């Protein structure tokens, strides 16, 4: 089984939908341990990303998405998500996307985020949601799982990762200025990263229809 650029476009649209529905929530999380703009940043960047969608192939689609996010988001999340999509796009195959390709794309995206942001897991960032999600995808590939199972495992892992940020003390990003006071609050970037993986499930269900 494989997917194609249609799936990628649905994924981006679903990501935008999730972020837009939860804009106030993301902003609220970012107010507790940040400057209250993560919701707006993500909506603005992803709106532009959705507007950039056309019938291009996967690589170009993700490149356009990356450029839109980079030029419209701002803040920490712009370069990080922009890099994620840019690297995922560079790693994407020319034609159909096998599950193994998908995992490789997401791994490349995560690597890009870590290269740019220099965060490891446990620092209370989006990396804490991205890492378990990517690992879940890689696991699914090894077990020859279906797209459905793989994507929902990844989403569940991302959710757990997101929730795991709550007790952490931030050592990266704006939340790190708060020291101990950052503990007890869920990280906004990890939350939007969960939406990224949940959106893949949404897109897969759309594709299945």
């Amino acid at each position, binding site marked *: 089984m494989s997917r194609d650029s249609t799936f990628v476009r649905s994924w981006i649209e679903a990501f935008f939908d999730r972020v837009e529905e939860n804009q106030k929530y993301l902003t609220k999380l970012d107010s507790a341990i940040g400057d209250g*703009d993560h919701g707006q940043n993500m909506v603005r960047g992803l709106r532009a990303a959705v507007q950039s969608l056309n019938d291009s192939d996967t690589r170009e689609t993700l490149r356009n998405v990356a450029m839109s996010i*980079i030029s419209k988001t701002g*803040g*920490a999340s712009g*370069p*990080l998500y922009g890099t994620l999509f840019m690297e995922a796009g560079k790693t994407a195959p020319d034609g159909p996307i096998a599950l193994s390709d998908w995992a490789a794309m997401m791994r490349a995206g995560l690597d890009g985020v870590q290269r740019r942001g220099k965060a490891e897991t446990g620092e209370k960032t989006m990396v804490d949601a991205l890492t378990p999600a990517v690992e879940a995808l890689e696991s699914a590939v090894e077990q020859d799982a279906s797209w459905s199972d793989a994507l929902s495992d990844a989403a569940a892992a991302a959710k757990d990762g997101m929730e795991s940020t709550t007790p952490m003390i931030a050592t990266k990003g704006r939340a*790190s*200025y*708060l020291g101990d006071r950052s503990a007890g609050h869920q990280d906004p970037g990890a939350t939007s990263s969960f939406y990224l993986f949940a959106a893949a499930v949404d897109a897969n269900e759309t594709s299945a229809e």
Partner: protein
Amino acid sequence: MKKLINDPDHVVRESLEGFAAAHPDLVSVHFNPTFVVRSDGVPDGRVGILSGGGSGHEPMHNGFVGRGMLDAACPGEVFTSPTPDQMLAATEAVSAGAGVLHLVKNYTGDVMNFEMAEEMGADEGIEVRSVVIDDDVAVEDSTYTAGRRGVGGTVLIEKMCGAAADDGRSLEEITDLARRCNSEVRSMGMALTSCTVPSAGEPTFQLADDEMEIGIGIHGEPGRDRMSLESADAVVERLMGPILSDLPFHSGDDVLLFVNGMGATPMMELYLCYRKAAAMAEDHGLNVVRNLVGPYITSLEMAGLSITMMRMTDDLVALWDAPVQTPGLRWGQ
């Protein structure tokens, strides 16, 4: 949320339009990508000085564009780092054959967006150097944080660099100057109230009537500590203490003492705080050779203040005194 705005999503745009209409003699504002540039252009062979960051800190940075300070500024959305396309366009606009210096406040977003701009612009043939400003003592600079924030020292460094550029110095020299100034400046801030990001619609945090927040930044985020409100003199002590001991400043040092309003604190209170800060500096054996008092790097309508102190030498005093003609700072001719 009580603000004088129209659509919350258009605040930055409309404010820039008003700013452009008010200061055509000093600045031009470009949109898409958005940047502010001095209206008379950078003279040939002079280094271009550029900075940028989220909006909401006015007059910084747009208000410091003109002659003698910044040649261009890239404003992001409120409290949001600008994007690389802004810096690319602005860099080109202030490139006059001698290179461009990017002054970058140390926030993850600002640093990454400026870095991406430098990566993307590497082929343009413009020599770009970058200095990260991190003068805030409220945050430990360690592996446990994203590093110290760039706060009040930014204003001083922008002035020094603009004057150095006017003095005909090279990109190398001005970069070294900026790094040197950054290593000689320390700041700390506090807040009596938070502020409200227009598109968020409510304050970033809430303080009770008898509380204050110590060790704040400029983006409305909570600080290091929340505690009971104290007198102005006690507050100044809480800020000056870490500033004095962190560099550390030594008896006999010449200093520039900058008492900054976060936006909603009246000048009357800023001068009252300056009194104590200056007295503490003198008690420490420092010579306050220059000063700045007022709202220069703000956080929307936050009530509070920050103190910045830079160790000065005669050459820095000369750079400080050099003429500057910008909407936010003006002296000399």
